[in-house]
């Protein structure tokens, strides 16, 4: 029975990882941009949510409605100020520039919020669970998972069915040819960054409601997001969900078997195995 619970917990945790990874997947898919400040943006969202709750009261859930559009705005701003200069350049430059951005965000958070850990209080929902027979499922992890799947489904419909979505895919294939078809690729990049940051804001708030957070947590979260994207395969949204779930399962099942070992280790091991055996990821297209 413990194994079943661990497996369910792993899948649900994978939903959170997928939500973290969605933004990375979109940025990389559309503009081949690697943003190392991705995790710090999640931490920023958790802090902003905590500030909103402290000033205006209520549950962190209402702050999602405010912070998703704010995140979109932050994405637009970052695209115009930073990322626009990084599209199509040497990936080493992207890494240096976004690493710098990560340091800037961490230090700004440290200055404003000090090094103290904070948590978002969601009250009784945090401990509520359903029992199905002998198996109990946490209500909040389930909610988080459902939201992650809904986000991925809507993004997938957006990319597959709408005219702007087709422009996303066209730009991802060949930005220069896309311009010759009348597509303003820079406008597409702005939307992509808006989506990337608003989804990672959502992930940051969900994560902050589960575990406490501090200004220096970003890089740790980035690693989970990265691992989920790589395990699932770059450029595939469903792969990202699968990658997140695989990562979550590796952690919970690994910890179930080897109780003395840190759960994260098993995720890292899975990541390395996938890199060695199937470098394009479980659902990745072979890079051409």
């Amino acid at each position, binding site marked *: 029975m413990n194994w079943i619970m661990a497996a369910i917990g792993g899948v649900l945790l994978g939903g959170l990882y997928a939500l973290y990874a969605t933004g990375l997947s979109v940025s990389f898919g559309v503009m081949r941009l690697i943003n190392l400040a991705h995790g710090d943006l999640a931490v920023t969202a958790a802090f902003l949510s905590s500030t909103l709750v402290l000033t205006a009261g209520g549950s962190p859930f209402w702050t999602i409605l405010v912070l998703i559009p704010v995140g979109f705005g932050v994405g637009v701003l970052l695209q115009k100020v930073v990322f626009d200069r990084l599209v199509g350049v040497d990936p080493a430059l992207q890494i240096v520039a976004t690493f710098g951005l990560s340091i800037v965000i961490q230090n700004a958070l440290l200055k404003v919020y000090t090094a103290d850990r904070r948590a978002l209080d969601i009250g009784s929902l945090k401990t509520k669970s359903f029992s199905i027979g002998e198996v109990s499922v946490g209500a909040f992890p389930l909610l988080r998972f459902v939201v992650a799947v809904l986000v991925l489904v809507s993004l997938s419909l957006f990319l597959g069915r709408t*005219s702007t979505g*087709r*422009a996303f*895919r*066209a730009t*991802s*294939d*060949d930005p*220069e*040819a*896309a*311009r*010759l*078809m*009348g*597509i*303003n*690729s820079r406008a597409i990049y702005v939307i992509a960054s808006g989506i990337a940051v608003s989804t990672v804001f959502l992930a940051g708030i969900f994560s902050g409601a589960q575990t406490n957070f501090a200004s220096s947590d970003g890089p740790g979260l980035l690693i989970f997001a990265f691992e989920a994207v790589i395990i699932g395969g770059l450029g595939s949204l469903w792969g990202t969900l699968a990658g997140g779930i695989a990562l979550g399962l590796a952690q919970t099942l690994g910890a179930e078997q080897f109780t003395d070992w840190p759960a994260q280790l098993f995720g890292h091991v899975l990541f390395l195995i996938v890199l060695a055996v199937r470098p394009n990821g479980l659902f990745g*297209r072979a890079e*051409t």
Partner: protein
Amino acid sequence: MSAVIEVDRVSKRFGALSVIDELSFSLEQGEALGVVGPNGAGKTTTLNMIAGDFRPTTGRVRFDGRDVTGLPAHRRCRIGIGRTSQVPRPFDGLTVFENVLVGASFGGAHRGHRARDVAVDALRRTGMLAKANVRAGELTLLERKRLELSRALSTEPKVLLLDEIAGGLTEGEVLELIDTIKSIHAAGVSIIWIEHIVHALLKVVDRMLAMDYGRKLIEGDPHEVMASDEVKNVYLGTEA
């Protein structure tokens, strides 16, 4: 007749290398202009500057009398400058239909059913309708060339810039393509066509421009230009 494209004393330098040197020519409304010249003469660079891939170092490009020199490529596409690339570059991950739908939605600025109609029409005119649901990455070379042409048509161009669209095709395929381009021209689209396959050009174009070293060598009646000493010298390498 009025000029739909005017290239006015355009020069392009990449660092110290001069690729185009004070080139001027124009394309009249409804005209088809052929461009010939040896490799490296600056033909593709000229098309790139008309389409807006990059700006000339000096000089102006006008479309319908309007100065478009500073306009980015996607805006030029929307006002009616369509373009095919020498090496077809379809969006491999999209279906053939989606490829042209993108052109109709953005380049042609159509929505919904109208965008679909324009996309279907672009495929029909190039004989690609049967392949509509195939992923573009799976097409043969001729099909890729046809899709390249359909995509340019889907943006509803007033001027179509063709860059060696017949290159690499078999003789029979070239003849099919000539018929397609003729019908596009007959529908009122002005054309600038760069091509090494001269007999294909001669079947379609009204006027010929020969270039070498980024300059205009000679322009005029297609047969006279091809028979001229200037062109013979460049192609036969017997420059005195």
